[in-house]
């Protein structure tokens, strides 16, 4: 709705001769000014996102019949995801569904992504800290330096990792030449660990940037004040720096977690036969399996799961922050 009311106003706001009354209105109404600022973004979002999204929601209630779509509304697609049945166990957890493959792959993808995100954010924080507080004169240089490797194609970087971890790869050849092993190690590549390593390489720079941004804006006088009050470096970090940089950590975690859940390319490239993910199945519904309704339902299913985890995470972090403030 915002875009409808805000649209024409933008035109007015840009044209120079503003009526005095309009200006007064603008100054008075916080929300109105906010919406005007938001309008361009919301318009783009509305046209390119809301319309497709509504389409997807609608599609998830239809049925694919070969190349036709049966437009009768049905919950069949959702039911096929969670219909109880004999099921399987995965990682010792029972999945009592008739088609457990969807839920199992979802859990697998979420776990993989959680592990990757934790590793990446933990590795990113000290680097961001370094750029924000130590690299005083060369901040821009460092920022670009960490992104430049990403400008060579993703695919080439995956090849590079295969060369490092592979059968006759850098790591194996190195270990053999110094006599640690005799035969190439097979477990380096084509397994979940290789996926985590490759994802870390791909996303680390992405995770560093938001943390850096929020560390950068911390008021240095606060840190001095903490030192003056006799806080040790560690205490100062825990009481001042870390809480103040939390928005960046949160952004960074979300930025890595959310897209990697649906990633199906990296696992397919370096994950070996175990490299199938929920994203693989969804992608197949829009491709080879040609079942858009099921693909849509699975996408929504995945989105709900991710949203739930994100909310849980934000709620947990929020609680911590409140506690920290109270203390």
């Amino acid at each position: 709705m915002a875009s409808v009311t805000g649209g024409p106003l933008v035109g007015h706001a840009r044209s120079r001769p503003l009526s005095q009354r309009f200006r007064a209105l603008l100054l008075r109404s916080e929300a109105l000014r906010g919406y005007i600022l938001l309008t361009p973004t919301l318009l783009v979002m509305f046209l390119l996102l809301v319309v497709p999204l509504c389409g997807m929601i609608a599609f998830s209630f239809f049925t694919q019949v070969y190349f036709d779509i049966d437009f009768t509304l049905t919950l069949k697609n959702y039911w096929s995801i969670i219909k109880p049945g004999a099921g399987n166990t995965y990682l010792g957890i029972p999945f009592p569904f008739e088609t457990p493959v969807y839920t199992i792959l979802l859990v697998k993808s979420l776990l993989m992504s959680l592990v990757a995100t934790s590793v990446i954010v933990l590795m990113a924080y000290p680097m961001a800290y370094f750029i924000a507080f130590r690299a005083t004169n060369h901040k821009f240089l460092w920022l670009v330096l960490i992104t430049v490797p990403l400008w060579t194609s993703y695919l080439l970087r995956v090849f590079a990792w295969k060369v490092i971890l592979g059968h006759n790869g850098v790591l194996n050849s190195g270990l053999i030449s110094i006599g640690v092993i005799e035969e190439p190690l097979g477990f380096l590549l084509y397994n979940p660990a290789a996926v985590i390593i490759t994802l870390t390489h791909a996303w680390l720079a992405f995770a560093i940037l938001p943390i850096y941004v929020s560390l950068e804006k911390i008021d240095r006088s606060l840190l001095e004040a903490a030192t003056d009050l006799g806080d040790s470096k560690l205490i100062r970090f825990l009481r001042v720096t870390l809480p103040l940089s939390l928005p960046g950590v949160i952004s960074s975690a979300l930025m890595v977690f959310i897209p990697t859940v649906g990633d199906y390319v990296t696992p397919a490239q370096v994950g070996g036969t175990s490299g199938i993910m929920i994203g693989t199945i969804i992608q197949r519904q829009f491709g080879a399996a040609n079942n858009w309704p099921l693909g849509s339902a699975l996408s929504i299913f995945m989105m709900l799961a991710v949203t739930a985890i994100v909310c849980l995470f934000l709620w947990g972090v929020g609680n911590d922050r409140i506690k920290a403030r109270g203390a």
Partner: protein
Amino acid sequence: MKRAMHLNLLGVYAIFIVALLYGPVLLLPMFSFNDSIYIAFPLKGFTTKWYQEMATNSALLAALMNSLKVGIGVAIVSTVLGLTAAKAVIRHRLPGKTQIVGMIMLPLLLPSLFLGIALLIILRKVFSVDLSLWTIGAGHVLICMPFSMLILIARLEGFDKSLEEASLDLGENAWGTFWHVTFPLALPGVISSLLLSFTTSLDEFVIAFFLGGNDTTLPLFIWSQLRFPAKLPGVLALGSCILVLSIVIVVLAEVVRRRGVQSSKPTVF
């Protein structure tokens, strides 16, 4: 003493991270001089033929130019949209703010394949737009905007609002305030957002596949080349050139910047 130790430890870590990021990538130049179509050990022999092949492969170079055009455009548009939206969300008490932010984050959640197909339907069947680099750009803005927003919200959140109010009180108009107060405050975020959006667009291929007509971007070109492994070393040579050129440009920019800072110092003080 203690402080120096601390600095060193972090410094060592920073060097480790840079080595980690560059290590795999530096293999590319090595293999680009290897006389074999396969990126595998053992190395076969030295050759520069892949560079000749790259230089004469007009489709490859055209794809690179397309990618640069789209990437730079997307970085600017998505950062501008992200900045205005972040400012609106942070500075103004908006009803429905959480929902709006949630919505802007949504593209992160959607499978890229779905986004590609859905956008294609919207652009072709609703707007009857011909596919081109513009349509790829539109798709990329959609997926880059959440990144820009996340970064810029993190940057703007918690800044003292009174700075902007003071500027308005002192008679600056809204644009002047934005330009002289908000923008400088947001600058580190803006740079990060530009870098991220550019990088994302440069590497994206699923949306580019569906929204690209006859124009090919670099990742698309590389993916379609996978059918012909013999052509991959040319791509490798290109990757190496991109890497070396970027590093040279970045270092030059830094040198120029520092010169500028030094020469301008006396006039400031």
